[in-house]
Every structure is written in C-alpha cells, then in structure tokens.
C-alpha cells in the first residue's frame, strides 16, 4: 500500500511496563497477559491516516532490561518518535523517567517527538502514580502525555496517532529535514517525485500496486 510518509518510532521504558503489549494492541488488537520478556528489539508496523494522508508507522519495541541498554541505544538516532512508557502501578518505573529521558535526549536527534505514557490505567485500585504527576512531568520536560491501557485498548490508538500528528505538524512547519532519512522520516513513493534527491535509476514505480 502506498503511503505519504513513513515514521520510525521506538518504544522505551522499564521492563514490564507494557511496551510490547502496547505494540501488540496497536498492530494486532490483542492483549498478551503473560510477560514475554523482549530480547533486544522487536519490530512491528501499521498504517494510519492523518489529515487524509496514509502514514506508515514502523515501530521498534525495545527491551527494558538494563543489560540490553547499549543495544537499544543504537535505535535512538534513527527514530522520529518515541513512546516513553511507565507503569502507573509501579512508582519506581515513574522515578526512572529522568534517566530514560536523559538517555533519549543524548542519543536521539533533537527533533524527536516524545510521548510520555502512563500505562495500565485499568488497574485503578493499584495506582501508585497520580495522573497529575504524569501531567506535571510531561509539562516540565515538554512531552505529550497520555494514560493508556494495553489491556482494554483505552487510548492506545490515540497514543500512537497523536505522536504521529505532532511529527506531521513539525514537518508542515519545516522543522524536520525530511530529506535526511536518518531522522526517521521517509516520504512515500508518490511524493518522492517532487523531491528529486539522488534517487538514481530506481526502475520506476512498482507496477500493479503491491500489498501491505
């Protein structure tokens, strides 16, 4: 399927906060009740529509465990968006946000859009972090904020889509250099014509419009 833009995302945050579940809910509309520890990094993708335009999201779900930190750092630079996730039922995951944010800011390109996510909002009875605290943290550090539940799918779509909207707006404002793929943004095949870069003899557009 042809797309207007392609955005690369990463999902980061402590182990067990529900990063993989958020991705699975977004791509497959499923919930996985067992913690399936991510080893390294896993890939997922989905198409969304913003402003009538097809946007392809390519998402790298990273491992939260400390031992994978050096591997997952390699993914910051090439991403246009990041979902920084904590677990509202575990205060320590909220306390670690500063470290995560420092890491992200240090290794990513400066325009990367970061969405702060307080996940597991369905577990109200076990809540340890107030919604206001999340909001305050986000305000203080210039992030977008949302509480989600990968279990009930509440706000999951919105989290991914709102991040994309923010990136899209930045593109419209000319903040992003869209010709540099290292920023995690790519222009789709039908837009590429107007953007005559060094794309040499690429054998024309694919005939018969592919799939996915």
């Amino acid at each position, binding site marked *: 399927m042809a797309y207007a833009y392609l955005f690369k995302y990463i999902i980061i945050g402590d182990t067990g906060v529900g990063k993989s579940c958020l991705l699975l809910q977004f791509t497959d509309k499923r919930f996985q009740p067992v913690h399936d520890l991510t080893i*390294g*990094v896993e*890939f997922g993708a989905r198409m969304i529509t913003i402003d009538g335009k097809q946007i392809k999201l390519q998402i790298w779900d990273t491992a939260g465990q400390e031992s994978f930190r*050096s591997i997952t750092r*390699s993914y910051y630079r090439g991403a246009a968006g990041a979902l920084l996730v904590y677990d509202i039922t575990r205060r320590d995951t909220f306390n670690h946000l500063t470290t995560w944010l420092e890491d992200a800011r240090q*290794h990513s390109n400066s325009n990367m859009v970061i969405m702060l996510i307080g996940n597991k909002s369905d577990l109200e009875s076990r809540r340890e972090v107030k919604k206001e605290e999340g909001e305050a943290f986000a305000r203080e550090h210039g992030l977008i904020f949302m509480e989600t539940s990968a279990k009930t799918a509440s706000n999951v779509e919105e989290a991914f889509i709102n991040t994309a909207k923010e990136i899209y707006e930045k593109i419209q404002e000319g903040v992003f250099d869209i010709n540099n793929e290292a920023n995690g943004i790519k222009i789709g095949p039908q837009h590429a014509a107007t953007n005559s870069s060094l794309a040499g003899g690429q*054998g024309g557009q694919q005939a*018969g419009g592919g*799939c*996915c």
Partner: protein
Amino acid sequence: MNFFRGVMGGQPAGPQPSGADTIQKLCDRVASSTLLEDRRDAVRALKSLSKKYRMEVGTQAMDHLIHILQTDRSDSEILGYALDTLYNIICSDEEEEPDKDKIKVLIVSLYIHVFWSDLSVYLCLLTALLKSQCAQVQGIILVSPMGVSRLMDLLADSREVIRNDGLLLLQQLTKGNAAIQKIVAFENAFERLLDIITEEGTSDGGIVVEDCLLLLLNLLKNNSSNQNFFKEGSYIQRMKPWFEVGDDNSGWSAQKVTNLHLMLQLVRVMVSPVNSPGATASCQKSMFQCGLLQQLCTILMATGVPADILTETINTVSEVIRGSQVNQDYFASVNAPSNPPRPAIVVLLMSMVNERQPFVLRCAVLYCFQCFLYKNQKGQGEIVATLLPSTIDANSISAGQLLCGGLFSADSLSNWCAAVALGHALQDNLTQKEQLLRVQLATSLGKPPVSLLQQCTNILSQGSKVQTRVGLLMLLCTWMSNCPIAVTHFLHNQENVPFLTAQISENLGEDERLVQGLCALLLGICIYYNDNSLENYTKEKLKQLIEKRIGKENFVEKLGFITKHELYSRAAQKPQPAFSTPEHMLFDHEFTKLVKELEGFITKAVHKSSEEDKKEEEVKKTLEQHDSIVTQYKELIREQDSQINELKEQVSLLSSQKDQMQSAITQQLSQIQQHKDQYNILKLKLGKDSGQSDGGQQVNGLQLEELTLLREELEELRRQHTLLNTQLTDKDKLISSLVSTATYSPAQSVKY
C-alpha cells in the same frame, strides 16, 4: 597497556643478540624483497618469533607489519600472518583465551595506525579480525556507542572502494548475531542494499551484487523481526524485477548464476516452512500480488535456463505456493508454452519420472508437487480425478497417468517418487482415499483389470528393490490410515495378510529391517482402522494372528525399526526432500508425521488383551446406549415444547374470545337496565294518568299493548343473559384447566 609500553615508549632492555639480529634480518626481507612468497615467509617467521620476543618484534617490526597490511592486503595469507603477529605482540602468551580488552586495544591501535592514512586498509583489517575473533569483536562493536550505525554509514560512502569494503565488513559483522542484524536493518540497510543491487544491474551486476545479496541473507535468515520489517517495508515487491529474464537464456556468466541463486534463496528465506505460518502466508500473498510468483513461473517454463537455477527456481516456487490456496490455484493454471499447451504440473511430473533427469531436479519436482497439494483439497481432488474412469481423457497425458507410469516403471527412484507424490494427493483427505479405490488398471491383454490397490500389493510381493517397496508401503499406509473401507479392500485379498505376517516374522538382514517395520505398521493400521466387517479379519482375529505367528514383543520391536532408522530423523526435520544420494531416498516428511502419530496407538492396540478390548467395547456400547437414551429424551422434550406452545396459543385465543363475550354481556346488561328504566318510567306514568282522567283509558290501552311488548322483550333478554352466563362459566373452566396444563408441563419435562 603492555602494547604501548612495549611498542611506543619502552626501550628494548638488552635484547639477546641472536633474536634481535634475526628479527632485523627478517624485517629487512619484509621491507626489500620484491617477491610476495619471500615476504610471506619472512612475516611467517616473524609471527613464530613474536611470542618469545614480543618486545623486540613489537619495536622492530611494527612499521613493516603495518606497511604489509597496506600493500599486500590482496593476499589473505600474508595478511593473516601479519595480524597474528600484531595480535601476539599485544596479548601475552600465558593467556590462551584472548580477552576483550586486548582485542579492543588491537582495534584501537589499528585505528590509530591505519584509519587516517587508509580507511580501506582499516576496514580490511577489521574484517580480518572479525573473521578470526568473531563473537568478541561483535561484542565490542555492539556496545561501543553508535558503533554499528557508524559502520552502516560506509554503505552510503561516495567512494566505491570504501562502500565495497564496508559491505565485506558488514557481512562478517552480521554473521550469527541477531542484535547487530536488527540494528543494521534499522539503519536502512534494506533500502541501501536494494538500491545498490539495482544500480549495479541486478543479476547482471558483478561481485558487488553478490556481496549485497550475501549481506541481505545474513540479515534475514532466521530473523523474524527483520523479515517482518522487510515485508512491511514493501521490499518484496522490489525483488520482482530481479527475475525478469529474457527469452534467450543461453550463455549466462558464472556470476549471474551465483547472483540468481542467492536471489532465489532470499525469496525462500521469506516463505520458509520453518517460519511462523502467519508470516509465511502474508509473504506468499505479497509475492502473488506483486507478480513475483508469476515471474518465477516464467523462469520455470523458459528455455535455456541452467539446470541448477531451474532446480532452485522449482524449490522456490514450491515454497511460495505451499499451503496458500490462491497461489496453488494460480500454479495449477500455469501452462507450458508447448503445442498443444500442457499444464506446468504435467510437464514437471514428466521430469520426475524420467530417469535421465538430474537427481536434484527430480527431488525438486517432487517437492513442488507436495507443496502444491499441501492443505489443498481441491488440488488433491483434481489429481485423483485424472485417474478415475469417468474423467480420463485419452487424448492428453495427465498427472494421474504419469504417476501410475512412475509407480510401476522399472526405475525404483520413479517408483518411490510416484508413490510419495500419490500419497500426498491422499493426505488428510478421506474422500480421495475412497475415490482412489475405484481406480482399475488394465494389465496384460485378455486378463481382467486389477485395482490400483491390488496392483501395489502385487508389486510388493514380487520382491522388487527396497526403495520401490518402501515407497509402495508408505503409499499403502497413508492410503489406509483413517480409512476403514480401504482397510477392508486390502484385507479382502486373502494373500495380503499372510504376506505381511511372513515379512514381519522372518529373520531378515539389515537391508530388510525398514521394510519389516513398514509391514508391521501396515498390519497395525489394518487393526487400528478395522471396522470388523470381514469375518476372518476382525480386530480380534488379527491380534490373535500376531500373537501366534509373530509374537507381540517381536511385532512391536519390528514396528520400532522405522523410527530407529538412521535416515528417519533427517526426513522428520523439514518438508523438503533433500537426500545426499538417490539411495538415501527412503523417507517422506509427511509420512514421518504419520508414523509418529500411529506408533503409540498401534502399540497400545496390540498390547491390549481381548478382555480389555471387550470391556472397551462394552463401555462404548453403554455410552452409545446412553447417547440414544439422551436423544430420546431430547426428542420427547422437544415434542412437549411444541405442545406447550400450541396450548399457549389456544389459551390466548380463548381468553381474547372470553374478553369479547364479556364486553358483549356488559353491553346487553346495560341495555336491559335501560329497558327496565323505561319500563318503570312508563309504569309511573301509567299510574298517574289513570288517576287523573277517564279519557286516559284509550291512551292506557295503547300503553298496555306496548307494555306487553316490552315485557316480552325483557323476557327474551333475560333468557339470553342466562345463556351467556352459562357459556361464560364453561369458557372460564376451560381456561383454568388449560392454564394448569401449561404450567405443569414444563415441570414434567424437567423431571425426565
């Protein structure tokens, strides 16, 4: 930091004259000799001295070694010696296992010495280092910040040399390390590599294309995350033009053959049967939608394509269609451009049963046929139909004809392939198993036709080659498993069971063990799927036979010969028939699954005593009885249900009727009241009038007449009223009785 102390700063502390002299001589040779062999020998000698005279070699030879690395890098041997020497200088000899820090130092020192002067040399050295110390160097690069990303930038380098060296380096770097593979893919490797392949002219390109393809294979093989990324990035579509070959395919260069081989492998990696079924299915779908499958089928039918490319293309098509109904249907519709056009399937099968075709090609065709029939009931039906009397078309060669021809030809490999192929037309398909029983074969003139099943057993008993008999036995097992009618057909021939028992009970040589095992399996199937319709061969009788003629333990041991065979587990691993030699062609993958499934059941069935069997039979019967009782009750309840419904309808009908009547009565009652009132008024009037005047008489007379009339009317109304009242009571009674049945009935049914 021994290295720096030894090499950079430290003074050689009183070197032994002989050592230092030798080293100096060697260094001179390295520096001045014009012959490569001479230099190579000198560096080798330095290497052998480098452990004992670490310091000296380090001080005196370092510059020469670096120089060698730069000038002689096309010779991998001298490069290896030079690196080993450098390595020895850095790592002390007490340690056998080089540790990470030492290698890091080596990388850094190489970087310092070479990187700025010649990036290309640096890359070659790093590549060489990766070759010798792969895991360690991978580990170092992985944790160095942006290490992999930086190396990825090499692919975008405008200097072709650097880009190509970068390709070789990345090839080594990504070997067997999923984490690095994913980072490389994340850094847009797919896009880059596909662009380079296109720029270099795809399969017509040189060794650079080969290097790109090798790197792509590294990135995708056994890496489901990267495969998903590749598919989602619509890169499958970009593979299609790779396979656009012309009409004339003679004279392909060796490089082109290599390139195409790798390209086909890449396609196979994406649809491999070992991938998750969902992932493979969606890639198969893409490959059809973008026309890649169609392109591959064109190569299949093109002329002049080198045999090994043709073989690999068949294997690739096989996996692109395997288990995908749409792709299988498309494949069935492909025709060879012959006159008249023949289905591709038929053309391929002709090669499978042709002795003169290469062995690997015949294996590939068998695989293709199996993949075509895998989970394809429609295709199975079409193949079997070409054998049935009603649908045989005498004018053209059919798949069925070719399979039968192969089954009974003199070539044992054809026998085996045809038997396995036919077996796949029956896999998990009871209808086709039963249909195939209808197939009759004409034998020699003047003799009555014989059934296909019978012909198989005839050949079996004639003692042909092991390969032939194994093929036929596997076919029979597949055919009869789960199909009691086929079992009955088989048992119907009086010679079959004695043949099997004789085979199993005899003490035969090593070669015959597999055949014995398969005979035991077949006899086991005759027991397990027996519906006891033949008096002489009921389950019970067959078991007694085993006990008498073979012995239970002996039977089970013989049955075990199958899975114990050395080639069994190889075949069980993957669907593709891959055999090192034609003689090893014995097991079919699907058949190994059947064996796994049945071995336990049959062993249990044979071991069970007849009492246990009877008990089981009884339990079964009681269960069946129980079932039938339950069914009866269910029917009863259903009947009562409908009765209740009918009654309910009646009740509501009657109660509405009752309502109507009641309102009619009320109306009439009020009419009566009116009449009564009128009557009273009249009576009053009458009484007044008679007391006032005589002249009223006449009037009164008239009134009297009227009065009688009214009285009669009243009488009539009264009668009607009583009638209605009694009717009403009757209806009331009826209703209450109906209501009571309606409420009691459900309770009754619950009691059952």
